[in-house]
């Protein structure tokens, strides 16, 4: 009987699917609760922000990435975090001339694996939670950033692209004695 073996199939894949499906149920619930998709987008971003604030602790403890000295450093760490938490390696690119803005480009989006957007949801930024996670996580390491989607495979684009813009360092929050 193959009953025992199927659990072992690919545990990593399974836990990824569990997360994807749970997220899908959550988005479906939000769409039911709110009348317009802008509110859903905002709510997802807020949830992401809350997650990011906690996730950064987990990330720092697990990966021990050390301090970032410039935004390129930060971009690398974001890439590393994507690998760790979603099992995908995004590419970092499209730096702005001033070096304060970059893109995180995902070839595949594990969060949107089983998703198709119906016509009335075209305004929905399905994976908006990710933008919130980036913002929340950076804020906890004294970096104020903005993050938003500029391309989404669910909307027919080739890749999923998140733009991250550095706003400022939150100097006041650095505990005394650091640096």
């Amino acid at each position, binding site marked *: 009987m193959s009953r025992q073996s199927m659990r072992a199939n690919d545990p990593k894949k399974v*836990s990824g699917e569990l997360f994807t499906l749970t997220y899908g149920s959550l988005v479906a619930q939000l769409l039911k609760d709110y009348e317009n998709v802008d509110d859903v987008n905002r709510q997802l971003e807020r949830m992401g922000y809350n997650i990011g604030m906690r996730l950064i602790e987990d990330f720092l403890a697990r990966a021990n990435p050390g301090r970032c000295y410039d935004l390129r450093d930060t971009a690398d760490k974001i890439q590393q975090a994507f690998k760790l938490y979603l*099992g995908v390696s995004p590419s970092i690119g499209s730096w702005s001339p001033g070096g304060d803005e970059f893109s995180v480009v995902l070839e595949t989006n594990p969060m949107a694996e089983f998703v198709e957007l119906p016509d009335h949801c075209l305004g929905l930024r399905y994976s908006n939670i990710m933008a919130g996670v980036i913002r929340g996580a950076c804020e906890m390491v004294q970096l104020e950033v903005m993050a938003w989607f500029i391309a989404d495979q669910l909307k027919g684009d080739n890749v999923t692209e998140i733009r991250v813009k550095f706003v400022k360092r939150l100097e006041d929050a650095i505990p005394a004695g650091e640096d």
Partner: protein
Amino acid sequence: MAEEAMFDFIHMEAVSYVFQGGEKISEDEAISKLEHMGFATGYRLVERLTRESGRYKDELDIMKYICKDLWVTVYKKQIDNLRTNHQGVYVLHDNRFRFLSHMAAGKQYLQYAPRYLAFTCGLVRGCLANLGVTCVVTAEVTQLPACKFQIQVQRG
């Protein structure tokens, strides 16, 4: 795997989202939303998990599947104890339930525990529904992080 952390965080956000309405939304309504999310997740999840397994020979076999494989997949441990009266009532004991294990040991936060069980009740109900068993799932907790889920099968 770190993806587990993502699942935990999403679950936490789902719980805090349904309760953010404060006064506007009753406890029951919020719990039922969570239960519904769990149901939708479980219904889809079990379809993917059991793709390659054979047919389960009876209800008890299905319950064993829930206690062993499903629980390991979702909560990284097996159910500690399964009891049944052989008349359609099953009680699943988990002595260290994952969503409660970081909260407290003992009675602190006991009043909030049901919020963290509703999703799982739905998840189990969804899985069973897709395996052809219609049921009602309730959860009970007297001492964190242990809890028990009661499955009452509806005979049609």
